[in-house]
């Protein structure tokens, strides 16, 4: 019998309704995640990395539509669930933190109240117990004077502190899975490092799995076990951290790695950006979506999508270049 993963996404397809047509955003992606694992999803803006994770809790915007696939959490498909069933999972077994902590908290309610809402909904704790739990949570995420801070409003918190409060809120029920949607993008670099440290520590203490969405490979290298690289709504390469960082096979992944500043790089050495822009999803046909920007593009790339190939266990790539290398080496 196949092992049940904590989360398994199978052939997920999502599209957005625009004025006239349905624009595909996610074109059949599959991945899985086990307990305690950290999965990084990397890609440019518009690659579908956020959308794919919002699907898990069915938090798509109104014009977004899941066209097919399955999202199995502890073996149960989340997609057919009704509003009440999914609400019982949200914030409880799976919780989420978002990109912009400045706008992700309701300005009219105290931070304590916003954490309490979640506790009220998912537990039977009484008022005093809830308060104790909130104080403990704020303390856990490194907010000083939690008794005082819980009675304050979001505007009385700095950006980093708000993200800590968001994390406290997300962890209030000890979730099995935390989805972190670019949690450090809106923060400055020192705060960014603190938040990542915090997430690393909490992951070990609470033994939860994390899906970490980002466009910053530097951030990913710090915290993730596995990495998925997304481009134009597809997974083009996936593997363990080591495989992606030291043995990447897709030109796009390579491009991403080359565009990260390195500390040992001399000042004369320039960063190598990836030329061009992501493709218009509406115009994509049967070609490899990266072929327009790829330095290695061959004739076949413009005609046919590359097959998914296994490089070694756990490392998969969809690229004709790698296909040819394999053929030439006679495997």
């Amino acid at each position, binding site marked *: 019998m196949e092992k049940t993963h904590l989360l398994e996404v199978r052939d997920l397809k999502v599209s957005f309704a625009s004025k006239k047509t349905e624009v595909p955003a996610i074109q059949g992606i599959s991945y899985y995640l086990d307990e305690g694992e950290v999965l990084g999803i990397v890609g440019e803006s518009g690659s579908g990395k956020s959308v794919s994770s919002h699907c898990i809790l069915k938090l798509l915007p109104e014009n977004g539509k899941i066209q097919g696939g399955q999202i199995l959490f502890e073996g149960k498909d989340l997609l057919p669930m009704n509003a009440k069933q999914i609400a019982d999972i949200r914030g409880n077994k799976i919780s*989420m933190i*978002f990109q912009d902590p400045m706008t992700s908290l309701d300005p009219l309610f105290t931070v304590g109240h916003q954490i309490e809402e979640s506790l009220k909904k998912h537990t039977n704790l009484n008022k005093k117990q809830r308060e104790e739990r909130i104080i403990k949570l704020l303390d856990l995420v490194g907010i000083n004077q939690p008794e005082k801070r819980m009675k304050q409003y979001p505007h009385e918190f700095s950006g980093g502190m708000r993200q800590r409060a968001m994390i406290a809120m997300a962890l209030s029920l000890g979730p099995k899975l935390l989805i972190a949607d670019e949690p450090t993008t809106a923060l400055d670099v020192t705060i960014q490092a603190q938040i990542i440290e915090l997430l690393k520590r909490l992951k070990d203490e609470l033994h939860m799995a994390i899906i970490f969405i980002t466009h910053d490979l530097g951030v990913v290298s710090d915290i993730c076990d596995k990495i998925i690289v997304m481009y134009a709504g597809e997974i083009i390469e996936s593997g363990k951290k080591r495989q992606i960082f030291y043995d990447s096979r897709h030109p796009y992944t390579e491009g991403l790695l080359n565009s990260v500043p390195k500390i040992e790089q001399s000042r004369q050495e320039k960063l190598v950006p990836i030329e061009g822009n992501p493709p218009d999803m509406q115009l994509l046909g049967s070609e490899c979506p990266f072929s327009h920007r790829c330095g290695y593009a061959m004739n076949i790339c413009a005609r046919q999508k590359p097959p998914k190939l296994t490089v070694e266990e756990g490392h998969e790539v969809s690229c004709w270049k790698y296909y040819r290398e394999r053929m030439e080496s006679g495997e």
Partner: protein
Amino acid sequence: MELFQKIIKRVLLAVFSLFVIVTITFFLMNLIPGDPFMSEKANPEAQAALRAKYGLDQPIYIQYGKYLNGLLHGDMGNSYVLQKGRAISTIVTESFAVSMSLGIRALILAILIGVPLGCIAGLWKNKVPDACIRVISAVGISVPGYVIAAVLMLLLAVQLRVLPTSYNRPGGTVMPIITLSLYPTCYLIRLTRASILEVLNQDYLRTERAKGMSERVVIFVHALKNSLIPIITYLGPLTASILTGGFVAESVFNVPGLGRYFVSAINSRDYTLIMGTTIFYAALIIFMNLVCDILYQVVDPRIKLD
């Protein structure tokens, strides 16, 4: 205590604003050609005698000083023309009582209809209810009050004969109240709709959903409370203007309210009455804005009164 001090500060500021308003109005009013007695058919000597009697023949700064002095002693003078000889304070309080009793009902009607309809339109954006509500509110905003009043009168009083044309008959308050409340209702609809649409896109609602909160909590607790803020801003001046009565509604339906006096006092150069109505209206607006600011603080913790 802190709040109390701030209120005191605001009241002092309000007194200063009122002083500025009194001054500007006084001099502007004297710039209008003519005076309260120009229409008297009497001979020039009689007019001059009247002017002398009320001190209007004195230099303007002396008149101004006398008026301020009276005001400080709580005396706004007597009406020159419209209600000759009666104290301005009596005229204003009496007519304000009439306007207010209509105004409060119109205001409540506007809020009770405008805010919920605006919410419905916002929550069902671009669907049938929204389309209907938007058409109604667009019409209500663009049709001027005197047209509404005339149409209502023609329809309900002349054609259907269900309501009286005059204010003092039973049921006579219905049409003035509708006329008064129509514009604010429609404006509130649009304001609430825009406000709720803005709030519905906010990230914190997604956070609430991600916590497992029901749509009921997301909409009725978080979205509604946040969309109230711009509505409160509008309610302050609206309350002041609706309580003092609409000129059109009161003229058409013959309501003996304050609204009528705003224009008729100027037309007849009834100086003391112009001053009286202006001061009263200004004070009311200042007061309502203060109430709003305090209300703001109750709703929005980010706003501090200062």
